[in-house]
């Protein structure tokens, strides 16, 4: 389905396929109509699908690829092909993400590190949605420790919950708020119950914009096992929060010992 934003920017939605077949064909048809000057893939799946779509075109526009993660490029035929041919330029979001590209043979000349950014002023100026504190059951005397990250294994929620169990027993006023979406949401909910943390740890979906959530925290924790860079981390800094994060991937490129607490990866 094609939407129009302000009548000027056309949009199309595609399903990324595990074995790209129909979507690249549909993409190539659309590219023939729209005739863009440049293509920019923001994720690995978009990269794969656009890479194939270009092969179906006679005069395809150049393809730029962003790399947002710091784990190794997956192997296999797609991994081999799509990182070696047909890419005009790579944009890793951190030096850590750039290293993963160099590991598969992408030259330094073919890439430029461009860190992800946020609208800093939006976060600096926001006072947060105070009604959320009430919904979460927070009282003024509570010290609210927040984390915003996808509920995925590499984000380290299991470690944070084990730490939370010890912390709430040592510090009665501490409360945790975990915000996110993801495949492990149910596991996180179950862990909260299993660790007897109900009422001490709130698990929520991202229902409101991040700038209305972060100012409600007293500190921000990112216990990831891997990170390309983390815009949530940058947003937490912009919101004026003290930040604790694992020293992994691109995190130390944002958070230094002068402006936050870097902890050893577990």
């Amino acid at each position, binding site marked *: 389905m094609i939407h129009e934003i302000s009548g000027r920017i056309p949009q199309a939605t595609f399903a990324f396929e595990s074995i790209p077949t129909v979507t690249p064909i549909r993409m190539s048809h659309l590219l023939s109509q729209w005739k863009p000057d440049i293509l920019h893939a923001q994720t690995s799946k978009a990269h794969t699908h656009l890479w194939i779509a270009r092969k179906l075109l006679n005069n395809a526009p150049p393809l730029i690829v962003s790399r947002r993660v710091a784990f190794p490029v997956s192997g296999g035929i797609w991994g081999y092909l799509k990182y070696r041919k047909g890419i*005009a330029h790579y944009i890793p979001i951190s030096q850590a993400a750039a290293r993963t590209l160099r590991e598969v043979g992408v030259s330094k000349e073919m890439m*430029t590190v*461009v860190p992800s950014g946020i609208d800093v002023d939006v976060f600096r100026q926001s006072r947060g949605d105070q009604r959320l504190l009430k919904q979460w059951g927070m009282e003024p005397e509570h010290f609210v420790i927040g984390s915003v990250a996808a509920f995925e294994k590499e984000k380290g929620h299991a470690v944070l919950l084990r*730490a939370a169990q010890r*912390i709430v027993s040592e510090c009665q006023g501490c409360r945790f708020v975990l915000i996110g979406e993801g495949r492990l949401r149910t596991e996180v909910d179950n862990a909260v119950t299993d660790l007897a943390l109900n009422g001490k740890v709130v698990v929520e979906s991202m229902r409101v914009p991040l700038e209305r959530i972060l100012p409600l925290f007293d*500190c921000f924790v990112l216990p990831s096992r891997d990170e390309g860079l983390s815009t949530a981390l940058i947003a937490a800094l912009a919101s*004026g929060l003290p930040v*604790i994060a694992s020293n992994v991937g691109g995190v130390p490129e944002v958070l230094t010992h002068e402006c936050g607490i870097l902890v050893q990866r577990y």
Partner: protein
Amino acid sequence: MRYTRAAILKLVRDRDFGKRLAEMGSRRAKEFDIGRTVKKTFEIYKQVLKERF
């Protein structure tokens, strides 16, 4: 787990330390404003298109 726990308890017990970190962090965040990201990305677009035409 013990490092994360110790770091959180440090912030809970030493609020002045937390405030100092937050102040430095707020300054650090300015270096990651979206304006810079957009500008650098457009520079790459222009470079790629220049090579093409």
